């Protein structure tokens, strides 16, 4: 499965990349903001997007909305990574089409759980 990790903090990207690798997902790529992520998503076939929510420039939810409005990308499963489980933020994300969310810091097991739930839903 080809996964794109988006976060403006490279330490964070590395942490997620390592967790995914431990779970057996080796085919991972990185982008540091929504603007650089979009061309990647549009030009190559990605199966899964993991994105931070709070980023300068284009926020996670803005990226999500653009993806859901795009013919090619609207079915792409998106996992939101956030430091807080703020109610209205999560509701807005769900209403905008996010596939799942995970709260930092999380373990590999928690991540696996979230990924399974997304893909079991038949995405």
């Amino acid at each position, binding site marked *: 499965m080809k996964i794109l990790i988006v976060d403006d903090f490279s*330490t964070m990207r590395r942490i997620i990349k390592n967790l995914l690798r431990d779970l057996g997902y080796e085919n991972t790529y990185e982008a540091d903001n929504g603007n*650089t992520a979009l*061309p990647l998503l549009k030009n190559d076939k990605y199966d899964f997007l993991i994105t931070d929510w709070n980023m300068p420039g284009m926020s996670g939810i803005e990226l999500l909305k653009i993806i859901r409005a795009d013919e090619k990308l609207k079915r792409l499963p998106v996992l939101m990574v956030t430091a807080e489980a703020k109610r209205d933020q999560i509701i807005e994300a769900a*209403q905008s089409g996010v596939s799942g*969310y995970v709260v930092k810091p999380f373990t590999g097991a928690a991540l696996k759980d979230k990924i399974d739930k997304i893909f079991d839903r038949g995405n």
Partner: protein
Amino acid sequence: MGFDADNEILRDFIIEAEEVLDQLSGQLVELEVQPHNNELLNSIFRGFHSIKGSAGFLQIEPLVTLCHATENVFGSLRNNTISVDAHLMDVILEAFDQVNILFSQVNAGMVLKPASESLIQELNAISEQNITQSNTPDCNKNTDEYKNTEEVSEAEFEDLVNAFQAQSEAQSQVTDSLAQITDSPAQTNSITSPRNKSALQDVKHLDHQLDQYLRVNTQRLDEIMNLVGELVLIRNRCQKLTLPLKDEATSKSIGHLDKVTQALQNAVMKIRMQPIKKVFNRFPKVVRDLARQLDKSVNLELHGEETELDKNLVEAIVDPLIHLIRNAVDHGIELPAARKAAHKPPSGIIRLSAQQAGDQIHIIIQDDGGGMDPSLIKSKALQKNIITPEAAEQLSHVEIFNLIFAPGFSTKETISDISGRGVGMDVVKNKLTQLNGTIEVQSTQGQGTRVDIKVPLTLAIMPTLMVRLAHQIFALPLTHVVEIVPLIPANIHQLAAKNMVRLREKIIPLIFLKQWLMPKLEDLNHSQDEYMVIVSIDSQLIALAVDGLLGQEEVLIKPLDELLQGTPGISGATLTGEGQIALVLDLAGLIEHYYTLSDK
């Protein structure tokens, strides 16, 4: 995660967090000037938020707790439930200081000492405040905020996700049906094409913005820089070897080699260049803290932050610059009362500027403070036996001011904790000289002081003047060379047992380098000396007598072997185009060592 991975992540975190902290430093000071700038508040919020996020994974609990409490204050600020006041700034800056302390503890691998409970409570108290109290709208806001801390249940979340999916399914079915109904190609095109067109434009626009960045270990860059330097030496050698050949094909190739080597040199240098902003960013806080401590009012103006210089240089000049700036606040800018009496604006101004001038970076620190009193400096220097009374008579104002760089000099009776301590100006000067840079001071009593610093753009490759002393070749840093004139014995005079020479209207010290560098030479026949190289050290002109001139060469300086390191007056060695070894002279060190030695 494996052990190695953990270490890498910690290292990454330390590097990135440091950048964020640097940025926050400047932003927090900016906040006082622009307390309502939402973009600024967002940026600061994100700074603490990012550090908190990664710190959580690394299980650095104290940092998580502190950053969380601090970020909440900024969350409230950008929601306008609270606003910036002196108390808030104090608590925030205290919190930021604590974050920095925790961070340095992490960096040093020490056990962490969590921030005090009272600080956390203060932060929480501030973020939970509300500027307008007990009105109905706010009661609602409070309950809204309270509701926000409730969890979203799994079931609720699943419902929302399913609802979205159902909706989008329905939508695509509608679009599909429409497409089927309006079957003619022209019409389907017209339905979809405006969207496609703008999407295409978006992608093209974004493509242009696509900047790829790569994190590179600076050690690898240093290695590459070293190799490029070696290449430069080999190119020099090739040029010398092929010059007499006069073969067109060969000289063409060598010319090409020259061009490419130059381009490679420039390209590698550029990789290591960083905007000086990185260093300048922390100064506003330094000035603010110090001014507060001394009850002075000082503004720091920054200019030319985008000027770029070699990464190693950036790191090397931080300490000297901090010292000079603290000096300006401590000794330069007067207390408000004194400024008022002198009809000056109550806030002192320190102007820090950087610009590129040829192959050097020119940094200027200018303050509008009280300036320096030349007679005071002169008397101190005499008192500390830094100069003799006769020498003191001859000094120009500029030369007097530059006495402050002499070791052991300090005009304050009790060395203040702030910037004195004897470590001061001479250390600054040494550091800059090590970098092949120069520093000069000028001052007008009552008006202010100006410090001029020049450092070369790059440390590795240096333009030199190759000279010959008897059979040996030495390289002089070209930056210090002012001119070269023939040595005319008739112009040499003796003054207090020292050799002096007339250079147009001036009389300047004359040094026979052979005497210093090759004292064991059998035949110290001075009539061999043909030329004088006039150099400028600390704004003083000095003539160096040499036997022969070999020309200018750009060289890579290689450090001397361990056994020879520390030899006074020698900063390293290099290979000439002829393939011979040339010792590279450290002029300031040379003069300091030998000139004073000959006094005794």
